[in-house]
């Protein structure tokens, strides 16, 4: 009885450790960062479409998130992380890392510019989102493979 409890606990600990370890894997981290990016875009889109009232704090927070993500996103693509964890990263990332980083930098710059000159109404938020959306698509066009 005691041995069985111990065995189950050990198994759970290993699985738990696996989950925690996976959480640190660059593939998983970068997927999480993209989800955060999507959440920020969604908050801005709600305002741009008039579904949510304009809120300067939300606009500021969303753009800040985007600036943050863009800064550290390319660091999540070390050698050895090309496959695994259902990554949709294209091999082209490692073939053209400079260009990949340039795309992230552009996104950060555009979000940063909007943050510095905060869009003050629904229309301005829409305009900012259009620019940022083009950055999203421009990178995905080359560097993401839909699975």
């Amino acid at each position: 009885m005691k041995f069985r409890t111990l065995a189950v606990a050990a198994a759970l600990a290993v699985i738990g450790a696996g989950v925690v370890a996976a959480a640190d894997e660059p593939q998983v981290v970068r997927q999480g960062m993209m989800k955060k990016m999507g959440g920020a875009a969604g908050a801005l889109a709600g305002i741009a479409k008039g579904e949510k009232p304009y809120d300067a704090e939300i606009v500021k927070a969303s753009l800040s998130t985007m600036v943050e993500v863009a800064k550290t996103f390319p660091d999540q693509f070390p050698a050895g992380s090309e496959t695994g964890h259902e990554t949709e990263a294209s091999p082209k990332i490692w073939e053209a890392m400079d260009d990949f980083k340039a795309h992230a930098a552009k996104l950060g710059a555009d979000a940063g510019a909007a943050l510095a000159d905060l869009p003050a109404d629904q229309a301005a938020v829409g305009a900012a989102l259009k620019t940022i959306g083009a950055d999203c698509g421009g990178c995905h066009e080359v560097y993401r493979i839909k699975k």
Partner: protein
Amino acid sequence: MALRKFLGGIVLLAAAGAGAFYFITAPQRLPAETWASAGEPDLANGERIFNAGGCASCHAAPGAGEAERLVLAGGLALKSPFGTFHAPNISPDETAGIGGWTLAEFGDAMKRGTGRRGEHLYPAFPYASYARMTVKDIGDLYGYLKTLPKSASVPPGHDLPFPFNMRLLLGGWKFLYLNEAPRVTLADADETVKHGQYLAEGPGHCGECHTPRDVLGGLKTDQWLAGGPNPEGEGRIPDITPVEGKFGDWSAGDIAGYLETGFTPDFDSVGGAMVAVQKNMARLPKEDREAIAAYLKAVPAR
């Protein structure tokens, strides 16, 4: 003696068969009167059809940005299981492009895949979809193309191994796959859905990527828009039929919104080859995107 007669008979039969093949599958031209109804080109509509048809996505020079998008110099390489195609120059240059073509010659290319010298064109040029376009839309498009900048560029020819380099065989392909029939039958389709069907199955040529192909490169129309391996190489092209729990969960508004902004309902962003398509969709009038969305909600789920 009897064997010789027998063999002679086989040869004769083969020759007759080849002759019949050649005759039945010869490149077609539409009757000249067809184009009389095109009338004066409506250039605004021509531009709209140009965007719906995605002409620039293949025919602009490789790497052309927004600024050079309208210079249809050709040269883009399209890899396929049959070899690599290179898009031709379709700028209005009289020597290097199609500036010297008549509307009838342009229309025969678009609707029958027949080239100016009467040759079969390769269906990498999606005339199997464009066949469904109206005379008026083709006339307007041709009028619009003529207003675009000329390019003297001469792109490389296609790079196809034997037997795919034999244009004659395309007659057989067309016999099997070229028609103007609707891809799906939609009972009680309203005007919006019908309009969406025209745009998607005709100039939009969505099925050319979103429908899986058989070994001869023809579309498996019983799996219309069900997605499949990316014909250009890596990854998959999504299923865009209204499957419950998947694309079926998108509302018509979500679809039209995606075509306009590139954002999915959970704010993932468009990627891959669809980016160029979405940019063109964003240039269309709102009603066109809404019509395409209505059509995608109406097609059979696969």
